[in-house]
């Protein structure tokens, strides 16, 4: 039978072990802003494959998405995301939609459904890519839908975070983070805000 003092030490030991690096949480780190973005090769809704490296020399926006997420739905139904997509595409920016929802999840949709839903939402994009095993999402550290990444012409991560500063969609003077970052890159200027906290539903990865 252990006494009170022993119990205290035992609890402290367990608490300490639980917080040792590598014990609590993962030490896998996504790329930092300014470092090369990990390449991926994913299948598009039409069956073709696209690699991030295919677009070297262009500015690329990656938008993690899941049509079952109400935050994604709001951004499309309010017209905010389609307008941003169109503005970027008009500037010659590549826009890749990526869905990392695992096929066993209730939010998983087959390609035909995704084509219909995003067509009705008037989404504008270069390609809609499927990442069912979540490898591309985890390599970049995609955590939410939506979660935005901007890759510069050299293939380096230039922005990682939210689409704007209005998680609930209630702010009359919302600040867009993606457009200023893209505009700075187009002008060859440094991006002022490189990292923000993304918000929305968690990416529905398989365990």
């Amino acid at each position: 039978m252990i006494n009170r003092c022993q119990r205290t030490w035992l609890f402290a030991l367990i608490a300490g072990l639980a917080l040792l690096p590598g014990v609590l949480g993962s030490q896998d780190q996504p790329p930092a802003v300014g470092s090369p973005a990990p390449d991926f090769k994913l299948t598009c809704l039409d069956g073709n494959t696209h690699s991030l490296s295919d677009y070297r020399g262009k500015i690329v926006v990656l938008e993690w998405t899941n049509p079952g997420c109400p935050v994604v739905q709001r951004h499309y139904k309010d017209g905010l995301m389609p307008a941003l997509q169109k503005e970027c595409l008009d500037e010659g920016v590549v826009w890749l939609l990526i869905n990392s929802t695992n096929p066993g999840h209730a939010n998983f949709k087959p390609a035909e459904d995704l084509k219909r839903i995003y067509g009705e939402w008037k989404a504008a994009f270069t390609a809609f890519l499927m990442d069912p095993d979540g490898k591309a999402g985890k390599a970049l550290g995609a955590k939410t839908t939506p979660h935005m990444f901007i890759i510069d012409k050299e293939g380096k991560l230039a922005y990682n975070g939210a689409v704007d500063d209005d998680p609930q969609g209630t702010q009359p003077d919302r600040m867009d983070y993606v457009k200023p970052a893209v505009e700075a890159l187009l002008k060859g200027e440094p991006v002022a805000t490189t990292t923000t906290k993304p918000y929305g539903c968690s990416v529905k990865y398989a365990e």
Partner: protein
Amino acid sequence: MLFSTALFVAVSNSEEKPLRKVELLLLESHKASIMTVGLHIQLAPSWHLYWINPGDAGLAPEITWNLPPGYEAGPLRFPTPEKFVHSDIVAYGFKSEVLILCEIRPSGPLTATEMPTIACQLDWMACQESCITGREAIKVSPATQTPADLKRSRKILSRFARRFPKPLDTARISLKEAGFVKSRNGWQVEIPLMGKGGGLVSDFYPYSIENFVVAHNRIARSGGKVIIPLEPSGPSAVLVRIDGLLILGDDAYEVSIPVKSIDHSS
């Protein structure tokens, strides 16, 4: 005068709705001046709602007060949340039920002697396997309270009494200043833990930090310190203080620690 009461406003018993019941409770009042109200939310099984810092994903409940002229709302007080981890994504939230406290007080001298109706709008996100968002309008009118309301509100408050974070001075931990340093893995805040209770710290739940993004899945304890990896929003971001909850077993202690500022742009 001290009393407690409740007004039930929105109810749904549907299994499909994540929020089964949302109500605003009047928990404490001193004549027509300071009032403590509690937003009590009951969740359907398997659903969770988020803390004031939802973590990597999710949305914190957003409360917009609709107060009579001459009154203002203080900061929200949340109970200690649970930590949910799925595929390296860390979220903080509540299952079953949550009580969010807020103090409503006059912003200047009052002429009225009767306590006014307090109303608010709640924007929420609840998740289980999938997520749902919604909005509720709720209010509490002190004039309509009954002794039964009083009894029920006290019972709810007492159920949560032990779940709110405690002041640090009861934890036998001493905290002075945190460091903001750059390691080979990037920027991190280091909180030195001193005192007998320091060895019992099992976790740290940070409040949101303006202009910084915390890597919640890499919060750790090492060498008598809590390590909080984070990323600045840009070269002009400055960190002067870190706030959050030190977790010791089932107890949580609210801390606000000055951070030794280091120019991280160099």
